[in-house]
Structures are given as C-alpha cells and as structure tokens.
C-alpha cells in the first residue's frame, strides 16, 4: 500500500486509469456524434496517461498542453489513444486524439495538485484518489443517464433505414427540415397522440385533485390529532403503501370488468387516486408533523375551530408540501402503466403510456415508439426541471416507491 503513496507511483497510475476512462469516453462521444468508427486504444491511452500522470507530479502546468499536443500526434501513429477506423479522415482523428489528450492532461494535473514526486502523506494521497474517483463518477453517471436519453431523442428523429444502416450514427441531417419531426407529426396526425396527451393530462390533474381532497384531512388527522388507533393507522398507511399493484390489479380488473368500468376514463380516475392516496398521506403527514404546532394552537387561541385552523392556517403554510405532493402524484399518474394497460382497450380512451404500449407492436417503426416516449417524457421532465426543488422534496419525502 505504502509504495503507492509516492508521487512518482501514484501519478502515473492514476494517469493511466484516467486516460483509459477518457479514451473510452472520447471514443463513445465521437462515435455517437459522427457515426464513424472510433475505439479506445488501450496501450496508446495507457502510455499517454502514465506519462501525463508523471508530468502532473513534476511540472503540473505542462500536463495540459503536452496532453493536447501529444494526444493529437500519437493519433497518427499506431499507438493512437483513440483508434479510428479506416474510413475516418485525418482531421477527426487528430481532433479525437487532441481532445483525449487535453481531457487527460488538465484534469490529471488538477487531481495531483498538492502532490510532489516523493512520499506523500496520507491526506495528499487520498485527496488525489478522491479527485480521480470524483472525475470518474461524473463521467460515468452522466454517461449512463445521458446516453439512453440521447438515443431516445435521436432515434425519434431518424427513420428505420437510417437506423439499420448505422445504429451508431446519431448525427442529424438538418437539411431535412421539418421532415425530421415526421414521426411526431405522424403520431399526432395518425395515431391520435394529441388526444392521449390530453387524456393523460386530464387524468393526472384529476388524480392530483382527488388525492389531495382525501389525503389532506386524513394526513392532518394522523399527524396532529390524538385518538386511539392513531399508531395503527399510521402504520397501515405504510403497509398499504407496500402492497404491490399487480396483486391489486387482478381483483380490480375483475371488479371493473363486472361493473363495466373497464375502458372508461371514469374508472381510471377512480382507481388512480387510490393508488396515490397512501403516498400522499404518508408525505403530507410527515410534513404536517414538521409544522410547528404552536402556530395552529395560536389559531385555536384566536378563536378558530380545528377545521378553520386547517383551512386558514395549516393549508396556506403547507403550500410547498402540497406542491411537492401534487407534483409527485402527478408524476405517478402520468407515468402509470400497469393499470392503464390492463383497463384500457379502446384507443379513443388511451392515456399516453397506454398509447406508447400500443406502438410496440407488429410493424410500427421504432422511431414512432421513441417519438412517443419522448412525448411522454418531455412534459414530466420539463415540470421536473422547472420545479426541481419541490420535486426533489417530494421524492425524498414520500417515495421509496418506484
């Protein structure tokens, strides 16, 4: 262990590892961007990285520029850090090498900041390793999250033959103009997605309202009022929250079939809130508990009845929580798939998720499927990014559920 705790060992080793990470990342990025053949060159990248790592310990300022130059130069030799296929021109190859070298050089210098070539203290060594892991973590997580999203969006803008010809080519042919969005216009034109979008929205909003209508008084009672059975109720909420939907879906399906509620928006609006009420109860009661009781007591002292206190004091104060809960419930309702899938057969009543499920069939080209996915994802993402604070709070408050 202690052998690693020397600048001249730690630098090259971290450099090597980092270079491999960067080379892979660069290759993936270039492949996706151009559709061309790029792959990480293990030996070239390793050598470059180890060298830059050593440099970062000795002359940290040089690591970046040297990385840029050397990376580009090496890309012309067999020891290229990012190996390119035969059909790739020299310029992109040079570019890839340079980018790779630069993205190795500067960061490794930053990682090794404060380290010298000799023996390192535990703090210095660990700080470098942590910086390395941090860099790796950002690249890794960003990649695994962004790639699927990118693929989803890009696929929706291509057509089947382009996709089959080169599944890596996600470059967009802007000359197609509006034709790029052909899948979307077809979805809205021929597949009725406008109406699905509306249905989903309507169902989600109604679900939010009904959920709050039930959950607010219930949560308040559980959070604030003292009565026999409070603990039991509080636990049942969590327990119910844990009952798997598929277990309930079966009898609900039967009951709905018998009552003729299948295939009706009314049935869906009836059933969604019940799946969200436990969540909302759980979240709201947590929030209500956190509200200072004294403010409500002040209301009582000011001559209000309990119900008026809830209406005039607790609710205005709970706005942020109500927003979080609403958003979270909206998200659940918007993303709900199982019930919609089981209960809706009639395309005129499809929700968005059900509509997408219907796209996954026989001969409908997959760009339509992806366009549908984008249509379902974008509103919820927009909401999410716009109201991130509430959303995050909502998520943390209520949801271990998925």
């Amino acid at each position, binding site marked *: 262990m202690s052998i690693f705790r020397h600048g001249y060992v730690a630098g090259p080793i971290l450099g090597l590892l980092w270079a491999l990470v960067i080379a892979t990342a660069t290759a993936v990025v270039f492949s996706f961007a151009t559709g061309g053949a790029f792959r990480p060159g293990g030996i070239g990248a390793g050598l470059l990285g180890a060298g830059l790592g050593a440099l970062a310990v000795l002359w940290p300022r040089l690591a970046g520029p040297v990385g840029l130059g050397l990376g580009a130069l090496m890309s012309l030799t067999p020891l290229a850090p990012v190996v390119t296929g035969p059909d790739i021109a020299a310029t992109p190859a040079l570019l890839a090498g340079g980018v790779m070298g630069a993205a190795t050089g500067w960061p490794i210098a930053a990682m090794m900041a404060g380290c010298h070539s000799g023996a390192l203290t535990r703090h210095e060594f660990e*700080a470098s390793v942590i910086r390395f892991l941090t860099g790796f973590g950002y690249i890794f997580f960003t990649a695994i999250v962004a790639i699927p999203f990118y693929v989803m969006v890009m696929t929706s803008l291509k057509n089947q033959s382009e996709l089959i010809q080169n599944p890596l080519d996600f470059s967009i042919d802007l000359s197609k103009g509006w034709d790029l969005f052909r899948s979307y216009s077809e979805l809205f034109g021929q597949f009725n997605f406008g109406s699905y979008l509306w249905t989903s929205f309507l169902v989600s909003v109604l679900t939010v309202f009904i959920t709050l209508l039930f959950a607010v008084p219930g949560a*308040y009672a559980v959070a604030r009022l003292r*009565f026999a059975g409070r603990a039991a109720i509080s636990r049942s909420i969590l327990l119910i929250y844990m009952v798997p*939907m598929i277990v309930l879906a079966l009898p*609900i399906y039967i009951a709905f079939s018998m009552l003729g509620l299948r295939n009706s928006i009314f049935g869906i609006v009836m059933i969604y*809130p019940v799946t969200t009420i436990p969540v909302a109860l759980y979240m709201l009661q947590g929030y209500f508990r956190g509200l200072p009781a004294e403010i409500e007591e002040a209301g009582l002292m000011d001559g209000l009845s309990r119900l008026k206190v809830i209406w005039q004091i607790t609710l205005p104060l709970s706005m942020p929580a109500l927003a979080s809960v609403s958003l979270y419930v909206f998200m659940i309702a918007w993303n709900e798939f199982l019930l919609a899938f089981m209960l809706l057969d009639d395309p005129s009543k499809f929700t968005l998720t059900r509509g997408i499920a219907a796209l996954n069939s026989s001969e409908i080209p997959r760009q339509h499927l992806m366009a549908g*996915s984008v249509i379902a994802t974008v509103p919820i993402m927009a909401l999410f990014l716009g109201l991130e604070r509430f959303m995050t709070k909502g998520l*943390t408050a209520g949801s271990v*559920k998925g």
Partner: protein
Amino acid sequence: MTAQTPRSGSAPLGQSAETSRPAPTPPKGRNPLERREARLAWGLLLPTVTAVTLVVVLPLLAIFWISVKPVGLADLRPPVPVVSEDLRGRPEAVGDAATLRYRLRNSSQDQVISGVLLTDTLPKGLEIGDLDPRCVLDGREMTCDLGDFEGGYRETIEIPVIIGQAFADAGMELPDSPPGLTGRASNVLTSGSFTFENFARIFDGAEFWGVLWVTLVYTVFGTIGALLFGLFAALLLDKSFRGQGVLRGLYLFPYVAPVIAVAFTWIILFDPFSGSANALLIQMGVTDEAINFFGQRPLALIMVILFEVWRYFPLSFLFILARMQSIDTDMYEAADMDGASPFQQFWYLSMPQLLGILSVLFLLRFIWTFNKFDDIFLLTGGNAGTRTLTVNVYEQAFAVSNIGAGAAVAVVIFACLLVFSFLFFRFISQEEGL
C-alpha cells in the same frame, strides 16, 4: 392581589391535596376535549379509510378468496341461457309456411343451468303449427319448460307457422319483443366450491421455484446495486458547486421518466441487430457478434437487474444525499481537527452515520423491487429466465387465463410481503430514520 388560597401557599408539600389519595391512578376514559378531538379525527379519516378499504382491502380479501377457487378468466361471466328468435323460410304472402326458430344455448361451456324456462309472446297473425312437446301455448303466450342445460349445450326449437293477414299487415317481421329465457346457475365466484388446486399447481411445477429464485436474485442484486450506485452518486453531489442542481436533475431522469419510455429505450439501445450498444461493442472489438442482451439466459436477468439499478439509483441517491446533508458539519470539522484523512472520515464517520438510512432504504427498496412488475414485463415479458413472481401473476391470470392460479401467486407474494414488512417495522421503530 396577595390573597392566597387555603390549599396552596406556604403549606408544606406533604399536606397538599393528594395525600388523601394514597396511590394516584389515571382517570378512566378520555376527557371531553380529547373526545372531541378523536371524533374530529375519525371524521377526517373516514373518506380515506373508506376509499382505501374499498380499493385495497377488499381486493386483497378477494385475492385470498379467488386463490382457493377454480376460476379461469372466462368463468367471471356467470353462465346464462341465451336465446335468439327468427322467422325462417322467407315467407312472402299470406298463407305461406314459415318456421319460427328459437336458437338456445348455454353461454357457459362447462356449467349446468337448471330449470330453463322460455317464454314468448307470439306475434299476432301467425297460425301456429305443431308445438314442441315441452311447450304450452296459452292464448299467444308460449311457455317452454326446457329442463337443464349442460355446459356448452345448444338446441334449436322450430315451430312451423302459417302467415296470417295480421302478420302480413305488420310488415312480415317479428315484433321487437325478445323472448324471455330464465334459468338457475351457480357462479364459481360465489359458490361454495373450494380447491387447493391453484396452490398445488403453482408449488408443483419446477417452474415456481425457478421463478422464486429469479425473483430473489433480481431483488437482492437490484437493491444492493441501486444502493451502491446511489451512495456513489450522493458522494459526488454532496458538495455544492455551480451546476449541481442541473446534474442532480439529470441524474434523476431515469427515475422520473415514464417507465415505458425508458424500458423501450433500453430495448432499442440493446437491440441485437440495430442497437447502438452492440454496434459500439463490435466497433470497440469487445465482441465479434451481436449480443442478444435481453434474450439470452443469464444475460437477460443481468440486464434486467442493471435496468433496475439504473432506474432506481436516483432514489437511493436522493435519500442518501438528504441524510448526508443533515449530518452535522461540525462533526467533520472536529474530525479535521482530530487529523482524520478523507477516507478515514468516510469510513469512520460517514458510513456509520449512513448505515441507518442505508438499511432502511435497503429494506424498503427490497420490498419494492420484490413487488416490481412493469420493468420486467416491458423489457422481456418474463422470458429468457427473467420471470419473477409478479410477472407470474400476470402470466397465470391473463396469458394462461387462469385467474385462480394468478391469485394464488399473488397470495404467495403477499405472504412474503408480510414477512418483509414485519422486519421493516421491527427495524424502523429502532431506526428513527425516515
């Protein structure tokens, strides 16, 4: 202003009121204010409790009921006798012969309907020929006692008729008065017949244990994976820097996006023929031939687990992050003063502090992953060795149309769930984390 009540004042403590009550006991019942509060509480809870009972508790009971009944999907429809009536023979004028035909059947293929009774008002202006021996005519009212219909039974009763003037005047058509048909049948759902065949069946097949095993593997690895990735991500985002909010939003994408959208994205991304992942791997020389990620035996399960990890790491990450940010920074400063290195701080300070939330999260996520249905259903449909218990419920109940067996699997799931919740409550009451 200065008056003192006789009881209090400077009287020594020993003489105060309760000396007359040697061992004070709590009063029975609740005081009026508490009663008022309890009434209000139940009033507020009533709608919710009713709704939840209707849609959660009743279905759960129903599941138990159904699981011991021999029901298929088709049996949900109670058997009824069905009749249709028409006039055959294309009569054209008064005096033409025709046949009045009643086609009868039992809507069920296997249940008996007993005491079937056909009643009909025959139209005016028809001269009735030979009646079926089981029928009697009273004026224009015909009643036929048809006895019992076996399952799948069908028959046709034909009555020869001669067209009369009145009928011809009415346009030669049968009036819009459908014949009545009644009978008694028992409904499997409500009848007293029970069977353990459903359970016997699911426990019998070697398949069940495979499914259970897959479920456990999926749950354990999915949960642990999501937890570890979440921990790593939380560590990354535990410092504030510019763009932290954006990154956090981005990292939550897998969880927030509709499952159906991301599942299909994965399917397309990992498609063996035109998926980008395969193209990339081939290009990088990792593999020569396309890999069928979601269609090969152990790989499909691994992929499904990876999907689960990918989709739910944001959640663990949020929780862990929240917990981390609530750890007193003073503690880390104290550790700084104590000379602990970053890894020492992580290992000796952060980890023990996070252990609570990690275990709570593990239990909760374990339960939820165990319950997961959509993901696998969408990704593989339970094929290639990825069938879990929940997918099995669907499979049994809908694909095989055996509701009883589906319910039996659901009961098994529910039993597991109870065990887990018991653990959970045992644990969470100690770990006042969440």
